[in-house]
């Protein structure tokens, strides 16, 4: 870039796309989110062929491509298989930092669920056990954050 340009701030046209979205969750996802919202229960679906329970539930298995119709209730407790402690703030973050993202393998599930751990970060390690904490019933809307976060137990 030319030397003189280094100290020049060009005129800028600031733009922002405003495209509103409404995503259909589908029947399978709806069943999961409704159970979280109304019953504080977490459900997954099981693939017989692959012998795996998926949380959140899948309508078809990605591994063998077959349709899944076996529903399994998994525990609201599980184990942290991987995590990171976020040390910066961004408007997209649901809480202020520092907080952690964790992959949590709930009891009975074969995959990890991505969620938040916001307390006792000094106790957070790979393998630590955690338990889901749900929002107040009146605050729940059928959203993944109806589970407020996971607590280290």
């Amino acid at each position, binding site marked *: 870039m030319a030397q003189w340009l280094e100290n020049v701030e060009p005129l800028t046209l600031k733009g922002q796309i405003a495209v509103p979205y409404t995503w259909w969750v589908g029947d399978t996802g709806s069943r999961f989110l409704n159970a979280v919202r109304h019953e504080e229960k977490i459900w997954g679906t099981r693939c017989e062929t692959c012998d795996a329970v998926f949380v959140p539930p899948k309508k078809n298995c990605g591994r063998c491509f077959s349709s899944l119709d076996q529903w399994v209730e998994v525990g609201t407790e599980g184990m942290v298989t991987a995590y990171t402690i976020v040390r910066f703030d961004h408007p997209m973050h*649901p809480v202020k930092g520092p907080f952690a993202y964790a992959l949590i393998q709930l009891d009975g599930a074969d995959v*990890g669920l991505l969620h938040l751990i916001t307390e006792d970060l000094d106790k957070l390690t790979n393998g630590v056990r955690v338990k889901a904490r749900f929002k107040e019933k009146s605050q729940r809307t059928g959203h993944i954050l109806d589970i407020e976060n996971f607590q280290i137990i």
Partner: protein
Amino acid sequence: MDNIAIVGIAQTKYERRKKDKTYLDLVYEMTTAALDDAGLTINDIDSVVTVSNDFLDGRTISGMAVGDAAGAYDKNISTVEGDGTFGAFYGAMRVLGGAGTTLVVAHSKGSEGDIKTVTNAMFDPIYQRHLGIEGITSSAIQANAYMHKYGITEEELAAVSVKNHANAMNNPHAQLPLDLTLGDVMDSEMISDPLKKLDCSPVSDGAAAIIIADEEQAKKAKKPPVWIKGFAHCADEYLLGDRDLADPRALREAAEKAFAMAGIDEPMGGIDVVELYDAFSYMEPLWLEGMGFCAPGKGAQLLLDGITAMDGTLPVNPSGGVLSAHAVLVAGLARIVEVVEQLRGTAGARQVKGAKTGLAHGINGPCGQSHCVWILSKEMRG
């Protein structure tokens, strides 16, 4: 597979913010430069593949913006959204499939948007996006999984950053040539455990282009053609949590296919130089394991043993890698451009002496879900 070769290359200098150029300018410059490098004019190009991303550009049909700049007028053209290595792969399919001499050009200007919002949009909108997860934090989870699985330390990964930023001092295109100590990396600001600032690639503006031709055209090329001996790509499961982030099996699959095509039985010994996609320091050893250069968990040891240093037996990222310059989508294509320079013997201060066969690599999707491996050589296949 028929013999096809890369006959023209170009890449920009990568910068934090190219405030004097639109990305249309960058695409035009790289198209012109690649043509010049190949000794061709736009009329010699039969087919064009542009590489762009609607989120990065803030435009739907992002390929439309660069049609004129890429010489698309009155030509067969398409647009791949994904890393440049994948766009180039499609370009090569077109050459093999009879489309003629093909130009592949990729661009991005990370400075024109918020990269975190852009990478957040990779994540599932129902289950993961609203947690605010994005490129850095998801990669940090992968780093954690990898380090925990094999007992790798932050210092071992920091060594990768030291090496690559030092290598970048030999690369006039790189954004971050830096003379660092291990302590500098370890002391840099913690962004998301265990990734510190100097473990992370920068956000860059840049563009790159290559021209791929069949054997007949390649033999007429202005500069020695660099032949595609083997290449492949493969994608793993998507939802974060579904797969073992410390096991790059999609890369293993792609690499095995590429090596088999190239007739190379043993990666270590069969490759003289590697340019891989190290968006973060932990990725270098993890991808080297996936490619089969060492056993799982032993990737960091390769650097500690000096094997992947500039003066080692398998120099990795002589250009400084993605840690030193990261224009999204361009960075994989830049790895191909770098290997071509190496094999032509024109890599200047970053030249690996006598390099005859090289590996270029790119990734796509969160945490390297999808990998594209290219094996390039001074010699034709068969």
